[in-house]
C-alpha cells in the first residue's frame, strides 16, 4: 500500500486525488473536512489548528498500517492543515483507492474516525461573538 502523509499550512483535495490515482483501482473514496461557519448555531470566524507534528505523523502512519492490515487498499493519503483556517477551507483530507468500492468506504471512514480520535492535533474556535474555545 502506498501512503502519503502530510501536515502543512496548506493542503488541497487535488494532491490527495493525484496521489491515489491508479488505472488498476476502480474505486476511490475521499473524505474532506472543511471549516464550518457555525458550531452548534454560533457563528465562527475561523479555526486555528495546532499539531504535535512529529507524533501526529507517526499516529497517521499507525492508521495507515491498520488500514493495510484490515483491507486490500492500494493507496491512502491523509492530509491535515495547521494554522488559521477560514470557513470553507480544507482542514483534513483522507483519500483511499482500491479495486472494490465497499472496502474503500469502510477504510476511509475508519481512517478519518481514528484520525479524529488519536492524532495529536487541536483546534481552537474563534467565535464571531469574541469567545475563543
Amino acid at each position, binding site marked *: 500500500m502506498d501512503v502519503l502523509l502530510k501536515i502543512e499550512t496548506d493542503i488541497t483535495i487535488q494532491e490527495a486525488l493525484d496521489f491515489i490515482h491508479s488505472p488498476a483501482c476502480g474505486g476511490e473514496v475521499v473524505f474532506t473536512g472543511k471549516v464550518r461557519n457555525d458550531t452548534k448555531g454560533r457563528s465562527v470566524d475561523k479555526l486555528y489548528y495546532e499539531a*504535535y507534528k*512529529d*507524533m501526529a505523523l507517526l499516529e497517521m502512519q499507525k492508521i495507515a498500517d491498520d488500514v493495510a492490515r484490515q483491507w486490500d487498499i492500494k493507496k491512502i493519503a491523509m492530509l491535515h492543515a495547521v494554522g488559521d483556517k477560514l470557513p470553507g477551507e480544507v482542514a483534513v483530507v483522507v483519500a483511499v483507492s482500491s479495486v472494490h468500492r465497499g472496502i474503500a468506504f469502510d477504510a476511509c471512514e475508519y481512517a478519518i474516525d481514528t484520525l479524529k480520535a488519536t492524532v495529536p492535533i487541536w483546534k481552537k474556535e474563534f467565535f464571531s461573538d469574541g469567545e475563543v474555545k
Partner: protein
Amino acid sequence: MNVMLFGVAKDIAGVARMQLPEGIATVGALKAWLLAAYPAFEQLNSLMIAVNKAYAADTQAVTTTDEIAIIPPVSGG
C-alpha cells in the same frame, strides 16, 4: 525533566514548555504532579502523556532524556 504542552493544556499552564521537578520516574507520577500543580487539568475529558512521540501507559518509566508531551483531548479534523 522538560515537557511540551499542547492545546488546552498549554492554555491551562500558560506555557508551551515547562521544567518538572526531579524525582518523577513514571508517567503516572508525572500525571499526579500535573494534577496537583494545575487542578484545572481535572476538568479535561482525558489527559494523556506521550513519551518519545507515542502514547504511554501510567506504568511507563520516564527519564530526562525522553521527549515528553502533555496531550489533552485531541480535536483535529
